[in-house]
């Protein structure tokens, strides 16, 4: 599913994460026009106010910008997008290493497992 939420974390934070992912993955292309707040809210089945707040956050991060008359656009700054992509990749790696650590594997062993899964 594209839009799914855990009710125990703020919805707007989860919206920011989702939208960020759509931009980083190229699902929302650089420079493309975003749907209106209302339409995005409908698509995600959330409150338009919450969607507005999430878009404000993305705007602060520089991932989207507003053209005064025609709405919101995804940034054309590919460097910035790849910076966020790197950040997310590192987060995922840390999460993986932490998970492996919690079941008793060292970093090296964790990496061996990674290699193994590649060969499968």
């Amino acid at each position, binding site marked *: 599913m594209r839009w799914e*939420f*855990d*009710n*125990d*974390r*703020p*919805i*707007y*934070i989860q919206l920011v994460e989702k939208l960020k992912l759509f931009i980083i993955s190229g699902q929302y292309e650089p420079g493309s026009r975003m749907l209106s707040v209302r339409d995005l*809210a*409908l698509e995600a*089945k*959330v*409150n*338009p*106010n*919450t969607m507005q707040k999430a878009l404000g956050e993305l705007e602060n991060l520089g991932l989207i910008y507003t053209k005064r008359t025609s709405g919101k656009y995804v940034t054309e700054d590919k460097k910035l997008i790849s910076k966020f992509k790197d950040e997310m990749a590192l987060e995922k790696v840390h999460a993986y290493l932490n998970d492996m650590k919690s079941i008793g594997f060292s970093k090296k062993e964790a990496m061996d497992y990674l290699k193994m899964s590649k060969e499968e």
Partner: protein
Amino acid sequence: MALVKCDGVCKSYGKNSILKNINLEIPKGKIIGLLGPNGSGKTTLIKIINGLLETNSGTVLVNGEKIGINSKKVISYLPERPYVNFNMSVKELINYFSDFYDNFDSDTAYKLLEKLNLNPNDKLNTMSKGMKEKVQLILVMSRKADLYILDEPIGGVDPATRDYILDTILTNFNDGASVIISTHLISDIEKILDEVIFIKEGSIYLTGDADELRTSKGMSIDEIFREEFKC
């Protein structure tokens, strides 16, 4: 100015005190969950705001005015129990509503009905419970109101119907209008709420921004509710 302002609202039936000193402000442009267990006073409060019950003391203002003709014009209310004549067809009901309310938009109503594949000539008493609920919601949401008050709109319907109802609410409330949804089925609706009001034994127990409450308690609104109202 708040859309609705309750000041020291008290209501009792004989010795039975139902609402105890309710102070409340409903802002514009928000979806608000009025949450509380059965018998906590949700429906009584809603009936007071709609002018169907009088307070014993305290005041309620809607757009700064006392409850009356003007407040009824701007509030679109879905009662908890069916309130329309089931011997009428959908078409007759739409005509009835559009005679009754200046701000009722028949086009919106017909458009929403089309999605349900409903024949406007069908009478309500030939329909299932879920379908009746949908029709009544459509009638209420087709008014261009400042405030929509929905008392238990998702009680007793299947999950797909619930989704349809939430969608209809999200799509059709006016810009700048507010929606009050009373329910105890919290997990189904909590992601569309801006704010919540917990009501317990006739008093306001907790109010706040839904996302802020999730952050501060690290729980869903549903879990907070279960925690606070543990029997």
